[in-house]
């Protein structure tokens, strides 16, 4: 049933159900725009991987597989905690909700920490495209295309993670202030959708960037 007089109901809606469906629909549509936004980068990646397979494989070898794999596990776990957080919101368990949101944030920070470590490693190994770039002469030019893509794609992903952490912080605050109830938990639900999307992007980035031609040693 619906709560016409609820404080959480915005004036343009008839009831909380309509508001919830609208919020969810809006976020799904936004995620579609994000698919196409990242999609352009995946297009650039696929064209150049097709053109320069050896250079891409050689470059991919230089990435830290353990870091990529660890980060994949971290993000998948954070999706679990996020899904559990939404469930906690739905069932009105405020303390569990806050705890799970915090857990999600901690995992997100862990991801960024590993990423920062990787970036630092790549900097020290002269794999940042530009004047200081160093690579075997055979693939010198095309490896820079790989690394440019690597930094842009993981960088854009990291920006989305950081925004996600900001959103989670707001969710924690809202939950702590008691603004989230089992009748009104839209913000948690749509934040969850966003968070899972960021996880999905990484699910594709991981094999495409880290695991090219790994069978060659």
């Amino acid at each position, binding site marked *: *049933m619906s709560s016409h007089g609820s404080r959480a109901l915005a004036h343009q809606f008839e009831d909380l159900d309509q508001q919830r469906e609208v919020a969810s629909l809006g976020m799904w549509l936004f995620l579609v725009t994000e698919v196409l936004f990242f999609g352009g980068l995946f*297009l650039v990646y696929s064209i150049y991987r097709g053109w320069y397979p050896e250079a891409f494989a050689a470059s991919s070898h230089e990435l830290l*597989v353990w870091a990529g794999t660890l980060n994949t596990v971290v993000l998948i776990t954070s999706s679990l905690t996020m899904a559990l957080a939404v469930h906690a919101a739905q069932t009105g368990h405020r303390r569990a909700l806050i705890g799970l949101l915090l857990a999600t944030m901690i995992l997100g920070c862990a991801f960024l920490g590993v990423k920062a470590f990787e970036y630092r490693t790549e900097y020290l190994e002269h794999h940042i495209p530009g004047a200081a770039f160093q690579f075997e002469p055979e693939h010198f030019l095309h490896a820079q295309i790989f690394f440019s893509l690597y930094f842009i794609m993981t960088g854009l992903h990291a920006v989305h993670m950081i925004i996600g952490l900001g959103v989670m912080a707001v969710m924690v605050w809202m939950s702590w202030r008691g603004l989230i109830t089992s009748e009104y938990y839209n913000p948690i639900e749509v934040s969850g959708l966003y968070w899972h999307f960021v996880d999905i992007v990484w699910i594709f980035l991981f*094999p495409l960037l880290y695991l090219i031609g790994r069978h060659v040693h």
Partner: protein
Amino acid sequence: MSTDAPRAHAPSATRVYYVVFAVLLVCTYLTWQVAYFDLGRLNTVVALTIAGLKTTLVVWFFMHARSSPRLTLVIAFGGLLWLAILLALTAGDYLTR
């Protein structure tokens, strides 16, 4: 307009999440390990297939697509379709040059 019943969730509803989580971890392990075998062009196919499977699990279970209105599924599918159009028609140029 009726609520699609969140209140009908029993605590066992979270069990699904743990199962999906385990499957996702297994898939990640597989992706990582398969990369070390030489399957030629199949390496990429397998990697993307596993990624697609993981995505489907996340969308269907974690993102509640399984209990979402049909419109949501249409939207999600539409986004993927449009990405496919971008990739396919562009690749069509590159592959036929």
